[in-house]
């Protein structure tokens, strides 16, 4: 393979306790730690390992988002990506528009493989990879926990509800990374310094010829329903009688 393209989304860090704004207009993101979506980090790690095995020549990290998403791309470069592209926009980009944007980058870069996370932990949509594969008219392998390559094909293990499924897809293809695909590396300080000299190109939606077409309006954001406060029991006997009281034993 010559090129692998990886999508990195800037999201609220998974350790942050999310709070919904009192007026229901969204969640509080001011002053909150932002990171690469964990699944996208796994996607990038996999691309780097493929390259390090000598099976690919170049790894391109791309992000669609605000100017600050440069931070996540710099982290991606520090992990080992060769170059980065930011499609800069302050708009909320829906999955279909993200897929259309990535397709434009694919047309420019002609990667043999695109890897993205199976879902972003902010909107939890889990759509972009499969939508991109549809628009590109290429195979998809979602929820990937293992992948090997031979003869222009990828053999993929997918985590499905009933166990592990293997499929074979011709390249080019889109993969979406699941948790157990790998454990991403930590970036070291010298890598961060080195990453500052790697190319990071910024383009606009207009440069790519993409007009956003939002279709899903978020009317309101609510905190989840709270469960009623429960009871604490002292010991196993207490547990058994509490369960009996509820008719559960």
């Amino acid at each position, binding site marked *: 393979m010559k090129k692998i393209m990886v999508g990195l989304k800037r999201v609220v860090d998974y350790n942050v306790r999310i709070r919904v704004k009192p007026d229901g207009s969204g969640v509080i993101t001011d002053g909150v730690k932002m990171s690469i979506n964990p699944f996208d980090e796994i996607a990038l790690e996999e691309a780097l390992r493929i390259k390090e095995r000598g099976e690919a020549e170049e790894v391109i990290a791309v992000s669609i988002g605000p100017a600050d998403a440069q931070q996540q791309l710099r982290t991606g470069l520090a992990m080992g990506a060769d170059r980065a592209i930011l499609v800069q926009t302050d708009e909320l980009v829906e999955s279909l528009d993200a897929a259309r944007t990535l397709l434009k980058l694919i047309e420019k870069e002609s990667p043999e493989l695109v890897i993205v996370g199976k879902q972003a*932990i902010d909107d939890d949509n*889990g759509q972009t990879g499969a939508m991109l594969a549809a628009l590109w008219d290429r195979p998809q392998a979602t929820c990937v926990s293992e992948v090997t390559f031979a003869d222009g094909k990828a053999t993929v293990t997918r985590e*499905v509800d009933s166990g592990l499924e293997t499929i074979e897809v011709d390249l080019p293809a889109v993969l979406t990374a699941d948790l157990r695909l790998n454990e991403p590396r930590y970036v070291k300080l010298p890598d961060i310094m080195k990453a500052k000299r790697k190319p990071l190109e910024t383009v606009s939606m207009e440069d790519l010829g993409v007009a956003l077409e939002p279709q899903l309006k978020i009317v309101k*954001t609510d905190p989840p329903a709270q469960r009623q406060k429960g009871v604490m029991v002292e010991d196993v006997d207490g547990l058994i009688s509490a369960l009996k009281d509820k008719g559960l034993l």
Partner: protein
Amino acid sequence: MGRILIIAEHDGSTLNSSTSKCVSCATGIENDGIDIVVFATSGADIASQAAGLAGVAKVLHVDNEANAKPLAAIIAPQVAAMAEPYSHILGPSTTFGKDLMPRVAGLLGVGQVSDIMTVIGPYTFQRPTYAGEAIITVEASADRKLVATVRSASYKTAASGGSAAVEALSVDANLPTHTRYGELKAAASDRPDLQTASRVICGGRALGSKENFDMVFKLADKLGAAVGATRAAVDAGYVPNETQVGQTGKIIAPELYIAFGISGAIQHVTGIKDAGTIVAVNKDAEAPIFEMADIGLVADLFTVIPELESKLG
């Protein structure tokens, strides 16, 4: 108003209960009829199971050798080819639906609403974001087809006793050859299915080993319960991936859920919020799982599990 199409999930012989939950969701959307489509090699039998779901108008089965296995790249173009009469196209938010539906949406050039938990109006829905910590109300444009997945844990199965018409359908779609099915490795188990079990026992990292996890299985067998796990326990290799419960695993809604040695990370608890009764056993009184437990016990699981098992007789 328009017709609703539901894509059936099945294993080649039996209809998955997630399809029935899609029907329950669909009945809450104003419609001119709810149809189900079964993609299989010979789907008449599965179609007749679907026809028994109350509220369904018609069940179509598209029989084709290419439909032997659930490959999104093969099924999606067939769904797109038959989408014309429908205003809404629904699938379950299982790994089957999560793989298929966005490919369908991509082919149709429409957005998707993932994980519908509440129907507010024909194009307005509530769905979870941020691992269930923020519930959004989203309004889709009424002048396009709506593609969505249904969060199974938010719905009860549809009543039986329906008698929908069953029809074979042939669709004219170009099916790709670039994607080939290999095999499914499923751990053979005669335990209840995690997604439909009325009782679930979940173990976390604290179990410490695959061998120790046997305690959980023994107790589960005694209670007729399914076994689930946290990501930490799956990552450590104590149990297989299909037992993972949470944001990126299964979302479950049993009557009784018992957590042993689980801290209660949001990514895990988003998968159990719809459980009837939540029981937590953890040796740390400060563990966040106690904030949502109906019954809590601060104790060492290595003494609680054997004691519970023997006292349940």
